[in-house]
């Protein structure tokens, strides 16, 4: 019952957050530019076309009224037409969602696989040399410019050793679409060759994206384990004569894992944001590359739609993780 209330409270908090996000994007797109009609029409538009747009979008109306219209369009799933391709932006965004998610989820898994063990080891060796090394590596992981790391990896693994592709998502065309995740679709189709290919393309972008995320996870896990180690509970268990191994495996790791889980929303958000830059370097055809191309084409509608879209995805993902966490965490049970 209590879980339900908590979950409902989180869900209830979502609409105002989304509304706020819309308000921010509205401010950026309609209030900051001196003449939004001119910007939205695209720079190629004639004065008459700009005027027509002003009428069409009601840009001459009072701001509040404009906002209501803007809201109505968004509720109807209308994020505007790309100035460049003339397609509804939402189509392109949805078409690229799977690519970004495949990358982000792969990176998330890798980051957890690296981050949690390292964090635990680091905590158990607190202040000894192994801990120092891991902490230094963590620091470096957090301080590295992701696009630079990407270039270094490309230089070494793709251009010098030639073991991974420099960029792209697959050689040519992906497998039959079921989930939109190339690796999973290839597995479902039983196409081992395509799976191998897709995996090879996935390695470098995933690694680049995973490194800062892993660093964050190491820090949280380490802190979580240290906390657990110093808790009365563990002290009590040790006093009871339980073997150290059991205590570590059964109690400390569990609490560390839950501690990590609480931060996964944050980490996932960073992954989505990092994707903008990483996808550009690896020409990974996801949301981030779409945003970059839109920047190059000054496709204003597309950039605003991307901001709104990514923001919403981010908020929803966080909500889902929050709820999952509430369900998993024994303390709320």
């Amino acid at each position, binding site marked *: 019952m209590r879980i339900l209330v908590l979950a409902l409270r989180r869900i209830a908090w979502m609409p105002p957050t989304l509304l706020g996000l819309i308000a921010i994007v509205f401010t950026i797109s309609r209030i900051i530019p001196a003449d939004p009609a001119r910007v939205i029409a695209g720079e190629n538009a004639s004065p008459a076309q700009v005027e027509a747009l002003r009428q069409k979008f009601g840009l001459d109306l009072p701001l509040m009224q404009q906002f209501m219209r803007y809201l109505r369009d968004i509720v109807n799933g209308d994020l505007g037409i790309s100035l460049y391709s003339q397609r509804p932006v939402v189509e392109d965004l949805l078409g*690229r969602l799977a690519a970004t998610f495949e990358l982000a989820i792969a990176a998330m898994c890798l980051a957890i696989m690296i981050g949690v063990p390292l964090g635990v080891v680091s905590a158990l060796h607190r202040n000894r040399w192994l801990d120092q090394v891991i902490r230094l590596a963590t620091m470096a992981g957090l301080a590295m410019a992701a696009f630079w790391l990407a270039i270094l990896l490309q230089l070494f693994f793709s251009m010098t050793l030639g073991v991974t592709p*420099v960029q792209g998502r697959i050689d040519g065309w992906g497998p039959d679409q079921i989930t*939109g995740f190339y690796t999973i679709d290839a597995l479902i189709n039983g196409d081992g060759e395509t799976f191998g290919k897709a995996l090879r393309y996935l390695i470098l972008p995933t690694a680049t994206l995973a490194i800062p995320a892993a660093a964050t996870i190491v820090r949280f896990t380490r802190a979580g384990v240290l906390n657990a180690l110093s808790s009365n509970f563990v002290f009590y268990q040790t006093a009871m004569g339980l073997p150290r191994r059991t205590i570590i495996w059964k109690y400390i790791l569990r609490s560390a894992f839950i501690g990590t889980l609480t931060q996964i929303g944050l980490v996932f958000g960073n992954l989505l944001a990092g994707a903008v830059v990483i996808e550009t370097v690896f*020409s990974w055809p996801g949301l981030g590359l779409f945003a970059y191309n839109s920047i190059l084409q000054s496709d204003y509608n597309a950039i605003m739609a991307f901001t709104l879209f990514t923001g919403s995805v981010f908020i929803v993902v966080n909500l889902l993780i929050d709820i999952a966490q509430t369900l998993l965490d024994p303390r709320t049970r």
Partner: protein
Amino acid sequence: MTGKFPPLTINRRAALAGLSATGLVGMHSPAFAARQKFVTANNNPYDLLDPHQLFDIGRIAVRLNMYDALTRWVDNPPRLENWLIEKVTISPDGKVYTFVIKQNVKFHDGTVMTSADVVYSMERILALKKGAYGLFKDVIEPGTTKALDPRTVQFTLTKPFAVFMAVLSELWVVNSALVKKNEKNGDWGADWLSKSEAGSGGYALRRYDPAIGFQTARFEGHFAGWGKNPIDDAEFRGVLETATRVLGVMKGEFNTTDGYLPAEQMARMKENPNIKTWEAESIRTFYFIINHWKAPLNDVNMRKALCYAFDYDGFNNKILSGTVVRNNGIIPNPMWGAPKDLQGYTYDLDKAKYHLSQVKNVRPLQIGAMAGYPQSEQAAQMLQAGCAKIGLEVKIVSEPYTTIAPKLNDRERAHDLIPLWRSAYFADPHNWTGFLFNSSNFDAGNASYYKNPRVDELCNKALIITDQDQRRVMYEEVSRILVEDAAGIFINNTKFHGAFTKNVKSIRFCPIGDAQDVRWIEMQG
């Protein structure tokens, strides 16, 4: 069938619709396993397929391979061929063009092309106001193009226009019935055609993903027929990273890539035994637009100071490692109308200083470089450094071309100087002279806001007469005047450096479209 044509993101329906109509389905059966495939890795993303919205040479493959126009450019130096046209009649005043189009030209869905399709395509360009609109807007009014009978179409020009036949190469004919069927709220089918195809060209769209590129299969029923050993499948991919494109050609994953790679990458390709390279002087001049509207750039001394302050040799031969050729005037060297003995400016700081000293009210200047085009930024830096040596302050801003382009036609907002290319959309000196420097083209192509009555007179006259020798004399004079007036800083003409896999036997290079016209490419069997 779904096995062969995987459902794919948003484009599935469009691609499949095109397919079932073209009857291509059977062609992909295993019996055709030995089909010859040609893959191009382009430096631009193919995020748009509408032939009436695209106008760049970088993505001309879309137009050349899937569509046909009334005329077509081939070979180098470029030669204009009547393509869809069987017969032309031009009225004595040079204003009415009547064409009979060839019999039995078929679109990919089997519909026979009629003059109504040509009319619709013309109206569509004029309505969308994108792509090649600028070529037609001054001479053709909406609603004036007539279909006299199913095969006869008549254009009535507002004034004589000697290059009309030449610009018709950008009037790509779309299947009007098919496009109309997909119109939404009077958008001329813009949404639909941005990701589908309604053409009659040599290759028909089979699969498209804006994030990857497009796949085509040869259209057996093309009106022009096919040679002995044509390529069956042509694939075009947008691959942004230069290193990947180069690596891909070396490994044979791609058959070719764009022809304008940095010298260092080109050198790597030339060393590779699996690669064949072709070199050809293109017709694409690189220059700085000078905005004459803004003082003190209206002063010829100011402009001459700039022309003398640019290190041509340093830029062409060192920064670009000699991958380009010095071009003294605006018309590319290989083009007729470019005077062979034209004297250009040299890098001479003393002369630059002298001319600068003659200018009153010198102010800091601003260069609008094109973001994402390293050469444009590098040229801006080159000029900035030269100007710094004569005590002239220059500031650079870097903006995407889409931001710079509209300002070109707005004299107050335009940057003082813009380093860019003038590509060949049609091979006539008018492309570089009348279009760019005739004062009647203010706000519509003459981005320099340059005005010289003699240039205007010559450019106008050269558009009325059709005799090439007479026109040549006029354009040569225009070329000289433009240099004398320092109308722009003319820097180089581009060279095409094509790299192909060894199994490509021959290409038919044409500067309009580079080597992207797959019809002319032959591979070893």
